[in-house]
């Protein structure tokens, strides 16, 4: 499809949906309320939204959807760290029921026992999975959960009178950047540690960094390299030794479910991403959902309101005085909580362990296939296994051909595959990160590896094909330098029209849409 921007599809007078009319009795009682508005409050010019019939609106967005590559459609193992797993369709059927969609959070608790029970049960299951005592499901995503981690840590130290003293948070470079960013947003100074020569987190570096000024360590494990820190308990103990708390970013928990637990390593607080590990769909980038699990010492600081069980009934309790309060409206991202509950109930203990083991098996199998490709490598811990993902490098290929990892990614899209390099900074040169999860069959892993092998071959034999990609995408090579220049960037259609067309209204509806058919 060559689908225009929606504003170009406007036709004066068309309607997409009609609004229920103001009843005659209401009109009789209150008159013309719009005309009665004070003039300075009454909008003079209607917002310049498009005017379109309903079918054309539908068609527009359906076509855009076909120009998008959802996890359901491809072998989505190239978005490393993202844990792109199967989001079961039965869960979509379950959550899209009026007894969930049409619930208001302030209804009589007697009318919402079902959803309260699901929240409560989900918390208890996550407590078991993490080994922690209490769980909150309020946060709306992984980074938001990291924020809640640090917010609770801050409140804890304040409650202990150490707020002024403890101004530093320590993290590692292969932990998710939001740990650093959230700590900073909470007012902390951030110390970032680099790994040792083998790519393992450096315990000595930690010990050197720890001090009475340390509020917490905030680490991911396994890190985004797929390497598990074997000294993790020593890390936690070292933090505790200086009075700091230990916060565990469990975004990468998919390979260790039922294998090892946060509390067993001594952590005080951890979080999970329900949209990664627990099978809720990623929604183009949210809504996700986070779960914060804490030891009993930190439980008073959890966000509120909490769902409590009282015999057979479930009740809602407002946040207590030491709670960090509300972190999101009401109870968090409820549809994802229900999905995660259904996902866990479909699997059980044996199933969760099979998830972890299969994710790890898939990853190590894929690693073998990738490392067979000339020019690909997996820096650090050479020859050792990884947990659930691997940060690879094309450095050798780059040195041979000049083709960068980004260029390979653009070319991979021509084969219907996602591909991601890594978070910044690129500690691993020419990085790429693959996380196969448990959701893909051996044949699909082979297929993905074959695509990368083919692109590596192209890079050596016909590098122009790679360099000039994309060749088979909806759009062609895009000039991203437009986007960093305040004079040229266009974040909305109105800004675009203003900057490029001096605000003149767009002309006639877009020209004939003689696009190729959906491939």
């Amino acid at each position: 499809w060559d689908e225009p921007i929606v504003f170009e599809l406007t036709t004066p007078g068309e309607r997409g949906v009609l609004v229920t009319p103001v009843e005659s009795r209401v009109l009789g009682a209150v008159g013309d309320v719009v005309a009665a508005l004070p003039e300075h409050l009454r909008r003079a010019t209607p917002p310049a939204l498009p005017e379109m019939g309903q079918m054309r609106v539908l068609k527009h967005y359906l076509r855009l959807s076909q120009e998008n590559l959802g996890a359901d459609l491809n072998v989505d193992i190239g978005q490393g760290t993202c844990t792109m797993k199967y989001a079961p369709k039965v869960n979509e059927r379950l959550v899209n029921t009026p007894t969930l969609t049409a619930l208001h959070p302030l209804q009589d608790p007697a009318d919402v026992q079902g959803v309260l029970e699901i929240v409560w049960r989900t918390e208890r299951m996550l407590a078991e999975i993490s080994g922690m005592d209490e769980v909150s499901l309020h946060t709306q995503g992984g980074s938001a959960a990291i924020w809640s981690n640090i917010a609770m840590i801050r409140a804890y130290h304040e409650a202990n009178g150490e707020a002024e003293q403890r101004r530093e948070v320590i993290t590692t470079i292969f932990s998710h950047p939001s740990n650093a960013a959230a700590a900073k947003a909470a007012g902390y100074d951030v110390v970032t540690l680099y790994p040792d020569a083998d790519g393992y987190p450096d315990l000595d570096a930690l010990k050197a960094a720890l001090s009475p000024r340390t509020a917490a360590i905030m680490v991911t494990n396994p890190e985004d390299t797929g390497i598990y820190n074997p000294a993790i308990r020593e890390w936690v103990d070292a933090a505790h030794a200086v009075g700091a708390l230990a916060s565990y970013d469990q975004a990468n928990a998919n390979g260790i479910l039922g294998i090892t637990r946060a509390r067993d390593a001594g952590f005080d607080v951890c979080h999970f991403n329900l949209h990664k590990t627990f099978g809720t769909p990623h929604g183009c980038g949210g809504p996700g959902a986070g779960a914060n699990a804490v030891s009993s010492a930190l439980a008073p600081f959890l966000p509120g309101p909490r769902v409590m069980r009282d015999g057979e009934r479930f009740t809602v309790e407002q946040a207590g005085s030491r709670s960090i309060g509300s972190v999101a409206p009401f109870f968090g991202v409820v549809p994802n909580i229900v999905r995660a509950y259904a996902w866990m109930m479909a699997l059980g203990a044996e199933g969760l362990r099979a998830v972890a083991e299969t994710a790890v098996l898939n990853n190590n199998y894929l690693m073998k296939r990738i490392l067979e490709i000339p020019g690909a490598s997996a820096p650090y811990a050479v020859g050792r296994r990884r947990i659930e993902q691997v940060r690879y490098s094309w450095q050798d290929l780059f040195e041979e051909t000049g083709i960068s990892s980004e260029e390979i990614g653009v070319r991979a899209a021509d084969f219907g595959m996602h591909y991601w390099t890594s978070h910044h900074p690129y500690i691993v040169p020419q990085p790429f990160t693959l996380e196969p999860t448990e959701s893909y069959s051996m044949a699909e892993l082979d297929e993905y590896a074959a695509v990368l092998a083919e692109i590596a071959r192209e890079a050596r034999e016909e590098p122009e094909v790679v360099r000039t990609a994309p060749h088979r995408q909806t759009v062609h090579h895009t000039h991203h330098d437009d986007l960093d220049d305040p004079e040229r960037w266009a974040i909305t259609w109105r800004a675009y029209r203003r900057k490029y067309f001096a605000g003149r209204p767009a002309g006639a509806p877009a020209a004939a849409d003689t696009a190729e058919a959906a491939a």
Partner: protein
Amino acid sequence: MTRPFVHPYIPNTAPESRAAMLAAVGATSVDEFYVDVPADLRLDRPLDLPEPLTAELDLERHVGGLLSRNVSTRTRLSFLGAGTYHHHVPAVVDEIINRSEFLTAYAGEPYEDHGRFQALFEYQSLMAELLAMDVVNVPTYDGYQATATGLAMAGRMTGRRRVLVASDVLPAKASKVHDFVRGHLDLEIVPTIGGTADAAAVASLLADDVAAVWVETPSATGAVEARLRELADAAHAVGAVLVVGTDPIGYGVLVPPAEHGADIVCGDIQSLGLHQWFGGAHGGFIAVHDDPRFIMEMPSRLFGLATTDVPGEYGFGDVAYDRTSFAHREEGKEWVGTAAALWGIAAGVYLTLMGPEGMRELGEVLLARTEYARRALAAIPGVELGDDALHLREFTVDLGGTGRTAGDVVRDLRLVGIEPGVPLDERTLLVCVTEMTSQRDIDRLAESLAAAVGASPAASDLAGADVPAASDPAPTLEEQSA
């Protein structure tokens, strides 16, 4: 059972595949992959979880059974708002956001995810028209976060700590904002008068150490702020930023805050095409003018239009990616992560369907029914309106004159299937009406409330008509849920 565990969600639990893959990597068991996990950290027992329901029909029966214990606002007549609103969601919205292509996509590049980039760029652009501003972010988590971030932006831009809170704010929102910004900002509440800002008091507190004036319109009680321009001018005079928290639902008929001088406009998009979801479907927007000083302080992703190698073709990408925590970790602005993109697409589809005329009609219905409900409830002896500001969708009534508490009234009306509103204190009830609550629904509330407070119904006087039955074709909720 001795049969191997094979699960539909995990293809390689098929025994042959598992064996073949282990052989391919030269491992005898998956345990080999966990060598780095110390033995004393290994869990030596199965997780203690409920028995699974591996057959889909058993799972459906269980989870569906739990959910069927809920009684929804299709059955209860609800006047609940306070941050989550019962608006109509057109079917096309759900159709689009439930498409596998959007529902299960994530963070692809502009080439293979062209549709996502375009849909979110369009969302930004549609919101921009409604708000009359040039820059809108890819949604953050919710209106609470958007407002917290908006204020934090003001703090970073001005290097100041004081924030004057000029409006009544939802307590939960105030809690979130407070905890989020307190490392950098101090909030000072300026009590409202008659439901809206005390502009004189705000002016008197303004000084060159004020980072921002924070206004909510409609406020926590649904009051529309009438003196925004005055507040903006006063704030600007001392170099402070005017941050306006709002719900965009009314801007088909109301002048948007930007046209009164707002610098940062933020709020929630739940009203624009999202179901109530037990309060679990919110998205936050932050809108600013096309001014790099503001834009570079935004932590969210911003999708922009770009040219491509093909003349006339639109490409997309991230604007000023270097602002973000993805690019610079703690040196970025706050952080960016998985937030609420799908809800942004929903809001975009919603605004496309509604168009200018739909948003105008909706604004009119909301204003008209709000006013109708205010009059209907105020006509009950002992019931007084909380204030006489202009209200959109929500308003408060003071039950002090009835001798009954708000809690009493809620309890009584629940017995007849009505959620009359949210008690704010012993005597105050926050009532919400939308296009989903018809005139007959409002009349029913008024009659039931009158009965609960022991007053004779007076609502039928309202329209000057004798006949209580209305002629409008829409069925009542009772008919619907009979």
